[in-house]
C-alpha cells in the first residue's frame, strides 16, 4: 500500500534524498540493516504481542539424527518450525544451491502439525527441491553446519567447558542456511494466501521466523550432542556466548533478480527507509534519550565493524572505510556536532555526506534511525506492496506524457551506448539445471537470445527511441499494437511514474555491474549483518546475531 496520503510529517519531504542519489548500485551496495529491517519488525511484533514459544517434539538421537518441532504461538495463529537433522558425510556438504543433501532441513508449518503432517514432511522436506510441500507450509529451507565451530562447541560443552569465545565471534553461527524458499516455491503457500495476516503482512516475515527458530535449533542441537557425548560432565552454552550466535546464510545470484522484477516492492522498501531518514533529519532538536540511543547504536556499529571480516578485496576495502568513518563520526559527535542547530540531525547528516565515504554514510543512516522508533517504526507498515494493482497497462496514456516520464525517471539510462561491448557485456538467464537466475557473458557464452528482461536501462532507452518519432497524442495502446516488444518497458515506466524508487539506476548488463551490490541491499532490508562476499556473485551473511532467543522474549528484548 502507499502511505503517501497518510504521512503525518509532510515537512520531512524537504529532507528526502533523491532517487538519483539513492538508487545507484554503488550506494545500494553499502546498505546497512536498520530498525525497519524485516527481522527487526518480526522481533518487535512478537515481543509487543507477547508471543509464546515451545518445543513439543524433540526426537533427535545421540548421533544428531531425527526431528524436532518449535512453535511460535501468536495471539491468533500458531506457526511451527519442523526440523529434520541428518547424518551428512563431509564430501556431500556444499552450501550452494546445486547441493542435494544437507545437515538439517526445515519447513515452517502453518499451525501445529499432526503426526501425519510430520510423516508427510519427513518424506519431502529432506529432499528440498526434489520434494513437494503443501499450502500448509510457508517456507522450505536447509542448513549446513559450520563444521569447525560446530565440532569445537560440541567437544567443549561435552567436556564441561565453554567454547573459545574468539572462535565463536570469528564465525558467528553454528549453521548456515543455503536457501530459504517461501512464496509458493515447491508447493508452499503463496504470498497472496497469507499477506492479509497482520503478523505476516510485512515482507519475508515467514522466512524470518523460520530462520529465527532455526537459530534456536542449532544451539539445542549442539547442547544435545554434548550431553550425548559427555553425559553428566556436559554443560550448556553460556548465555552471553549463545546470544552472539546467529544463523549464517549463503546466498547468490538467485535473489538478485527479485528486486528488479518487483519494482513497486523495491520502491516501498527504499521509500520507507528514506522517509525514516528524512523524518529524523527534520527534527528540530536532539532529545536526551535519542542522543543516548544514537551513541549506543554508534558504539555497537563500531564493535560490529571490528568483528566483521571478509576474504574479498572489495569488502575489505569497504570495511576499512567503515571503521575509519565510524571513528570519525564518533569524534565529530563528541566534539564538533552543533546540537543547537535548527535541524541538528540534518546538520550531522550533511556533515557526513561531505566528510565520509559512502560505506560510513549509510552506517550513519542506520545509527540515526536507531533511537527514533516512535517516529519511524510505523513506516514498516508501508513496506509491502499490492503489485497486482500496478500490472494493467493504462492504454490511454499518451506518447507525450510517456516521454516526460521517461526523461524524468530514466534520464540516467538514455545516454548509454548499449552497442558498446562493455555496456551489454552480460545477460541474465534461467539455468537449465536448477531453473535459477544466472548471469552470462554475452560475448563469449551462448544463450543471450534467451535473455531475461532485466536489462532495464537498455529497454528504457529503446523505448525512448520508439517514442521519438511518434505523435505526442498517440495513445500507448496504439503504439503497443505496432511495437509489442516495448510492453515490459511501458509497464515499468508507468510504475516508475508513481514510484520514484522503483528502479536501480544503473545498467544491469554492463561489464562493471557487481551483483553483490544488489544482494547487499536486499539482505540489509532482511536485517543481515557480516556481509562477506565470496565472489562478486555470492555471499555469506549472518542473521539474528545478538537477538534474543525465544526464552528471552518475555520482557528482555534487546533487539538485534
Amino acid at each position, binding site marked *: 500500500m502507499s502511505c503517501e496520503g497518510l504521512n503525518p510529517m509532510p515537512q520531512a519531504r524537504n529532507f528526502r534524498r533523491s532517487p538519483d542519489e539513492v538508487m545507484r548500485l554503488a550506494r545500494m551496495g553499502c546498505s546497512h540493516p536498520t530498525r525497519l529491517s524485516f527481522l527487526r519488525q518480526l522481533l518487535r511484533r512478537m515481543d509487543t504481542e507477547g508471543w509464546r514459544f515451545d518445543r513439543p517434539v524433540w526426537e533427535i538421537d545421540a548421533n544428531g539424527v531425527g526431528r524436532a518441532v518449535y512453535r511460535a504461538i501468536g495471539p491468533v495463529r500458531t506457526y511451527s518450525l519442523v526440523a529434520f537433522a541428518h547424518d551428512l558425510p*563431509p564430501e556431500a556438504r556444499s552450501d550452494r544451491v546445486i547441493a542435494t543433501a544437507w545437515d538439517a532441513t526445515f519447513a515452517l508449518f502453518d499451525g501445529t502439525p499432526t503426526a501425519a503432517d510430520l510423516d508427510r514432511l519427513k518424506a519431502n522436506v529432506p529432499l528440498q527441491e526434489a520434494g513437494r510441500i503443501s499450502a500448509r507450509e510457508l517456507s522450505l529451507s536447509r542448513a549446513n553446519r559450520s563444521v569447525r565451530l560446530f565440532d569445537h562447541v560440541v567437544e567443549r560443552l561435552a567436556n564441561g567447558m565453554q567454547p573459545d569465545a574468539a572462535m565463536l565471534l570469528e564465525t558467528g553461527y553454528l549453521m548456515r542456511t543455503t536457501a530459504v524458499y517461501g512464496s509458493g516455491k*515447491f*508447493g508452499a503457500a503463496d504470498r497472496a494466501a497469507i499477506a492479509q495476516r497482520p503478523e505476516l503482512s510485512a515482507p519475508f516475515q515467514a522466512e524470518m521466523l523460520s530462520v529465527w527458530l532455526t537459530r534456536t535449533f542449532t544451539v539445542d542441537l549442539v547442547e544435545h550432542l554434548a550431553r550425548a557425548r559427555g553425559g553428566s560432565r556436559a554443560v550448556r552454552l553460556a548465555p552471553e556466548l549463545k546470544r552472539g550466535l546467529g544463523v549464517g546464510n*549463503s546466498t*547468490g545470484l538467485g535473489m538478485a533478480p527479485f528486486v528488479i522484477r518487483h519494482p513497486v516492492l523495491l520502491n516501498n522498501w527504499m521509500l520507507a527507509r528514506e522517509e525514516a531518514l528524512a523524518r529524523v533529519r527534520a527534527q528540530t532538536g536532539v532529545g536526551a534519550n535519542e542522543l543516548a540511543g544514537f551513541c549506543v547504536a554508534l558504539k555497537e556499529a563500531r564493535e560490529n565493524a571490528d568483528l566483521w571480516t571478509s576474504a574479498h578485496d572489495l569488502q575489505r576495502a569497504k570495511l576499512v572505510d567503515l571503521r575509519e568513518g565510524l571513528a570519525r563520526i564518533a569524534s565529530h559527535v563528541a566534539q564538533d556536532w552543533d546540537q543547537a542547530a535548527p535541524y541538528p540531525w540534518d546538520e550531522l547528516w550533511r556533515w557526513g555526506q561531505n566528510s565520509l565515504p559512502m560505506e560510513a554514510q549509510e552506517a550513519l543512516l542506520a545509527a540515526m534511525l536507531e533511537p527514533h522508533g516512535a517516529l519511524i517504526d510505523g513506516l514498516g507498515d508501508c513496506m509491502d506492496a499490492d503489485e497486482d494493482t500496478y500490472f494493467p497497462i493504462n492504454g490511454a496514456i499518451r506518447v507525450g506524457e510517456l516521454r516526460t516520464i521517461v526523461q524524468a525517471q530514466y534520464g540516467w539510462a538514455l545516454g548509454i551506448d548499449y552497442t558498446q561491448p562493455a555496456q551489454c557485456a552480460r545477460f541474465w538467464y534461467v*539455468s537449465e539445471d536448477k531453473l535459477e537466475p544466472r548471469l552470462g*557473458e554475452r560475448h563469449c557464452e551462448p544463450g543471450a537470445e*534467451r535473455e531475461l528482461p532485466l536489462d532495464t536501462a537498455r529497454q528504457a532507452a529503446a523505448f525512448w527511441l520508439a517514442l521519438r518519432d511518434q505523435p505526442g497524442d498517440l495513445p500507448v*495502446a496504439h503504439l503497443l499494437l505496432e511495437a509489442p516488444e516495448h510492453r515490459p518497458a511501458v509497464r515499468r515506466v508507468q510504475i516508475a511514474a508513481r514510484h520514484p524508487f522503483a528502479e536501480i539506476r544503473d545498467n544491469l548488463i554492463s561489464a562493471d555491474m557487481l551483483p553483490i551490490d544488489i544482494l547487499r541491499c536486499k539482505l540489509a532490508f532482511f536485517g543481515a549483518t557480516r556481509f562477506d562476499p*565470496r565472489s562478486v556473485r555470492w555471499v555469506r551473511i549472518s542473521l539474528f546475531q545478538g537477538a534474543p532467543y525465544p526464552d528471552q522474549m518475555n520482557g528482555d528484548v534487546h533487539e538485534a
Partner: protein
Amino acid sequence: MKHDPMTNAALELSLSEIAALSARATRGAGRNWGEAEEAAEATCWLARAGLNWAAALLEVLQHPDADGACALRTGIALADSASLSGIPLNAQHRIDSPCFLLPFIARIADQTGQRIKLTAADMQVVIAPGACPMITGPLHMSGPTLVTITSCQRNSPPCPDWPQAHRGAVLATEYARLTQLMMAFTVPTSANSQAGAGAQGDDND
C-alpha cells in the same frame, strides 16, 4: 517438480509456480516478454477461478496467430484499449481459445466498473468487477469460435465469490508439455558461472 509420466493424475501447483511456468513456457514457445508476462497473469486468474489454466495456455501457444485469432493477443489489445474506449461492446472476434480471453475481460470489468458478458457458442460467462466469473454452458477451450462481448444487465444474477484456495491443478501431460516449452527458454549454466557461484568449493569450514 517430479511426476510420474506413466500416469496423468492432476498435480497441484501454487499460483507463483503457475506464473513462473506460464511465463517461461510462453517465452519458450517464441512469444515476446510482454505476452509472457500477460500469459502468467492470465493463467493465475484462470487457476483462481478453478478453470483449466494449463489447457487454455497450451491451446493458445500451439497457434501462431497467423489469422489474428490468438486469445492472448486479442485479450491484451482489448484490455489495453479499455481505458481508452471503454468496453468493446458487441465486439465479435474469431478466437482459438475463448476461455483465455476471460482474464482480460475481467480486467476490463475492473477498469470500467461494469459487468460484461462473453458468449462463445454455448458458453456464456458473466464477469463483474473483482468477482469470480459465472459460467453457464460447456467451457470452450479450443477451436476457432466466434466470441461476442456485450454489456450485462445490472439485474443479472450475482457473480460468485472467489474460492479461498490459491492453487491450480494441472494434468501430468499438460505439465510435461509446459515444462518442455519452458526448457526451450533456459540456458545451460556455464562453467564460469558455476565457479563464480561457488560451486567449486565445499562447505567444510
